[in-house]
């Protein structure tokens, strides 16, 4: 029986049952949670809080004290067209990469679930890329998309110069998107496939008896019942476009050519660690965080369309 499975990943509905869990003592609870909380605090909350704090100061690049300047840094950053360019690229990247990564995973998962019984081997091949770290993927894709050695080399021989991500900004951006999508597919595929397989078999049969063909069943049955998993992948993919993209940019394009792949997350790094504009970097970090938080809140408002019933 598959009843009562999956589902309750919701922030709201899950909390009630927690206390009745296996760990009754408050103490053992904390020992289990504390290490991860410490890590998150050390590498996320504290840096973010510091970034907000520093964004209000002007820091000298080579040491020698800092000066409280209020919102001057924000003034400076927000009137810099390069910031807006990077923001705009980030937005485009956010719109394209998750859509493709989820869309393709969904197609793969639907196909895999639909009795095109893919062998264990085939499934492994789809999942393996997950074992490759973001930075290594970047290195791999630099080779794959190399204009003279990679898959487009024959194309370049026929039409010289048609594909060159080292010179053409559009090509570079496309390469970045492909790498990001390729990186995201394995995880999304696993989540979506397991979601699909948790839908009881009988439902498809009942719908077939009701006259609903395979395509219609995808729309009327599978997608609505898959919304919890779609929601999860959507949120994670979205955060991934900020977090994981950094490793890819750093190994593949370093933001080039001509800034075409200079997303905000990479710009912050360059500004802070290459140009020593620490205050500017802190300010942009604060802005990026606010933006991401706003988007995530927006996404969780979409959660009311998610159907957790099983």
């Amino acid at each position: 029986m598959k009843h009562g499975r999956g589902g309750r990943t919701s922030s709201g509905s899950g909390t009630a049952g927690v206390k009745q869990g296996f760990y009754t003592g408050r103490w053992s609870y904390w020992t289990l949670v504390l290490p991860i909380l410490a890590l998150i605090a050390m590498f996320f909350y504290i840096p973010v809080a510091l970034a907000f704090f520093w964004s209000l100061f002007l820091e000298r690049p080579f040491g020698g004290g800092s000066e409280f300047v209020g919102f001057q840094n924000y003034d400076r950053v927000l009137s810099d067209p390069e910031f807006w360019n990077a923001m705009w690229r980030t937005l485009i990247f956010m719109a394209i990469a998750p859509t493709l990564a989820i869309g393709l995973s969904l197609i793969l998962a639907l196909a895999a679930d639909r009795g095109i019984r893919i062998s264990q081997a085939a499934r492994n091949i789809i999942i393996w890329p997950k074992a490759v770290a973001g930075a290594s993927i970047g290195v791999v894709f630099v080779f794959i998309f190399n204009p003279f050695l990679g898959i487009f080399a024959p194309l370049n021989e026929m039409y010289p110069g048609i594909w060159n991500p080292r010179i053409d900004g559009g090509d570079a951006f496309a390469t970045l998107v492909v790498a990001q999508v390729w990186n995201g597919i394995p995880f999304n595929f696993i989540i979506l496939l397991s979601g699909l397989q948790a839908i009881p078999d009988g439902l498809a049969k009942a719908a077939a008896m009701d006259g609903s063909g395979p395509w219609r069943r995808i729309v009327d049955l599978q997608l609505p019942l898959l919304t919890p998993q779609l929601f999860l992948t959507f949120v994670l993919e979205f955060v991934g476009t900020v977090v994981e993209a950094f490793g890819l940019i750093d190994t593949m394009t370093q933001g080039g050519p001509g800034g075409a792949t200079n997303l905000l997350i990479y710009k912050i790094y360059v500004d802070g660690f290459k140009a020593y504009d620490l205050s500017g970097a802190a300010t942009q970090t604060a802005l990026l965080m606010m933006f991401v938080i706003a988007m995530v809140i927006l996404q969780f408002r979409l959660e009311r369309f998610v159907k957790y019933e099983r």
Partner: protein
Amino acid sequence: MTGNAIAMEDVRKAYGGNLVIPGLTAEIGGGQFTVILGPSGCGKSTLLNMIAGLERVTSGTIRFGRREVQDLAPKDRGCAMVFQNYALYPHMSVRNNIGYALKVAGVPKEERRKRVDTAAESVGLRGLLDRRPSELSGGQRQRVAVARAIVREPSVLLFDEPLSNLDAKLRHGMRMELTRLHDRIGATSVFVTHDQVEAMTLADKVMLLNNGEIVQYAAPSELYENPATTFVATFIGAPAMNLLAADGEGAGIRLPDGTLLTKTPFRGPVTLGIRPENIEIVPDGIPCRTVYSESLGSHSVIVAALPDGQELRIATPLGRRMTPGEALSVRFMKGAIRLFDPESGKRH
């Protein structure tokens, strides 16, 4: 309206090399309530799914009336199905669950609403139409499943163990309702179960399957009174029919140790069948000894050992309390004895 008759001709089903149904030919009467009965894994669901179109036949033909349907999709066969675990769409309201087939068929909204109301009414679901399946009890869910099946007014209604998730009382109520529903809408009903009580109470005719083959296909009373084989004899009736290894000596039948069981004339080795309720306790009959006895409220069942050690189940009206070890003597009622071939298990 009277439903279509279903004619199956040499229907086979194999999963890989595993022949689950090795060639089945039968006709299910139009408008009748037919129960497919059999032990777990005998191919009941497989047969039903082939009728429904959810499984392809490996070979053979299935006809609804004069129409060959074995190659048609489920929706083109004009039949509906009620599933064991309800299979309600969890994300849809009860109304949308029932109306989904109509929606797919493109029935206009207003008519859809009316027909859903009628179907819901007929299974007693008024007032629950806006709930989600998760907010219903098991019995209510089953009603939704039934309403969903009848809303399209199918000519063939299929049920795959629809009552097995319900408790005993609810099951009884639903049995009565299904019978009434069947009489009212007149569709050909095919009902799969492994519960012989359901089969006996619901069916006009019972198709008893074993290993994918029809063992006997007859009215319930016929199955009970004249089982075609020892398999039928033991499958139908609780407690099951007694089957005793015995020898016919021409003028009567004796146990191997010589105890005379009955004066029924027969010659040669035989399996003697007698139902527990057709055994009387009398002063000077076949001697035996009580092994165990249990009271079931309306009657009690005594398990007794015959002189040669074979066990005999006896159903008696209440009031007879036996203690283990107590001697008693019994007689087999006239006309209730059934004789089977010990080799093939077939009825003589």
